[in-house]
């Protein structure tokens, strides 16, 4: 029995517990999972005074509507998200990147993400949830992680097993930037594609399809022509790999991807752009720009320094 808990009045479209994910399990078929947008995940935890690798609720498009019961705690929302806080006599519009106190009977209603996909809700405390392989991250495909590996459902109750004693309000000014080009490194099967196909890949616009989720992002656009073989012997995948199946439409592997695949790899998204890639909602236009390995490494270092700098300001 816990004295501090949330009742889910509305679960939202795809609300799951996530943290930093799992390692050393690709060889048995289990992907990293974990929060899709790592920077926003870390900032959410920092804003409520949690350890940076604590569990949060990740939501896509429409988030959950929760009613809280218990002692006063803080919460924060990160991403580009519209949400409301309902107290006894008032309802206020919440701001992302700012922590708020909630008390017994208060409600958090996460209406929607704004021209983006994922948002994060962190609470100043610890959820009472199951961990598997050192992570609570829900992998719906293999039913692994908290909540029996299933997304959150309306009517459920989520208990907290601990709440933070420090209840300082924290805030940072941060704006999620959009990027025009997603930088990619040449894939291991780049030469499977015709000169024309390679040109299309780097010069034309693609549109993010509705058939995108935590496993992969499907793109629509001009077909990329393969001149060698539309299948390869199945081999390992990592997040960010761009596969092109026989129909010529690229698919980008995301955090819950299958660990093995048999389509040629035309490119891999540079790590620096992953957080912003996953936030591109269906209908968004996407263009790829080639960069080399050493530039990708330098750009990631800068991005990581910026993340650490933001965290230190909170």
């Amino acid at each position, binding site marked *: 029995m816990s004295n501090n808990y949330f009742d889910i009045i509305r679960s939202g479209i795809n609300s799951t517990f996530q943290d930093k994910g799992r390692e050393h399990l690709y*060889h048995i078929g289990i992907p990293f999972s974990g929060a899709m947008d790592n920077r926003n995940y870390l900032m959410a935890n920092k804003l409520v005074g949690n350890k940076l690798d604590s569990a949060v609720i990740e939501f896509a498009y429409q988030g959950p509507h929760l009613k809280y019961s218990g002692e006063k705690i803080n919460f924060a929302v990160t991403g580009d998200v519209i949400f409301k806080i309902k107290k006894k006599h008032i309802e206020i519009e919440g701001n992302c990147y700012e922590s708020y106190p909630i008390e017994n009977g208060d409600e958090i209603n996460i209406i929607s993400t704004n021209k983006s996909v994922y948002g994060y809700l962190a609470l100043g405390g610890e959820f009472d949830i199951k961990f598997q392989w050192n992570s609570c991250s829900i992998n719906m*495909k293999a039913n692994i992680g908290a909540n029996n590996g299933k997304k959150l459902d309306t009517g459920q109750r989520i208990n907290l097993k601990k709440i933070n004693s420090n209840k300082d309000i924290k805030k940072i000014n941060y704006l999620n930037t959009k990027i025009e080009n997603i930088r990619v490194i040449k894939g291991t099967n780049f030469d499977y594609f015709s000169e024309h196909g390679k040109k299309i890949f780097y010069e034309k616009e693609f549109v993010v399809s509705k058939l995108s989720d935590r496993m992969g992002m499907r793109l629509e656009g001009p077909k990329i022509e393969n001149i060698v073989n539309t299948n390869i012997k199945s*081999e*390992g995948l990592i997040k960010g790999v761009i596969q092109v199946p026989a129909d010529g439409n690229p698919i980008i592997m995301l955090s819950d991807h299958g660990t093995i695949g048999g389509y040629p790899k035309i490119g891999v998204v540079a790590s620096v752009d992953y957080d912003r890639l996953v936030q591109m909602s269906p209908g968004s236009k996407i263009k790829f720009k080639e960069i080399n390995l050493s530039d990708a490494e330098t750009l990631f270092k800068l991005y990581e320094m910026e993340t650490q700098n933001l965290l230190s300001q909170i």
Partner: protein
Amino acid sequence: MIKNISNLGDAAVYCDFGIEVNKSINSNVIKYFNSIKEKKFKGINNLTPSYNKLIISYDLKLTNFNEVKSYVESINVTDSITSISKKIEIPVCCHEMFSMDIKRVEEKLNLSREKILDNFLNKEYFCYMTGFIAGMPFLGDLDKNMRVQRLETPRVKVPKGSVALTEQFANIYTFESPGGWNVIGNTPIDVFDSSKEDKPNLINPGDTVIFKEITLDQYKNFNE
């Protein structure tokens, strides 16, 4: 033994052991996999062995391509402990309730149902890799006269436990999943068990698998 090492993006090393699929190449992949896994190099956070490739993923915050590549080039795989391979028997029921693609396989191979099952059951299989979905084993090799292509249109849902064929391989669907392999039977046992965190996979790369036919009654009573 590694023919070529290159980068897969900025956070993985791609080790190419050749283009053929055979036990000898795959054993080399598994040897490297075991040695690297054993030694725990800083920053390496995942290893994905497959038929003839090994992908080594790392945390770009802790290391980089050149460091991991030099490390892979420097390791002595002969030092590595050889994996302990097991022989595993998998009960399979090929009743028409489960063998939804047997007719297609009969037509494609021009063999009778009895002959197909006879060929399939009287054979030992080698586990080349596991993955795609958690714990799914890729088992080879089927005889040349037993090789069929994938379904033209993959199924949206293949039932859990399905035993299926494609080209030179057999596999077992550890979860209900989309898939395009030719289903010829179903096993009542759990090939993947996430509650056993130290050993969730029943079948691991390098293991030998034999399928033993059971009747529908035996299937139904299996977990009682």
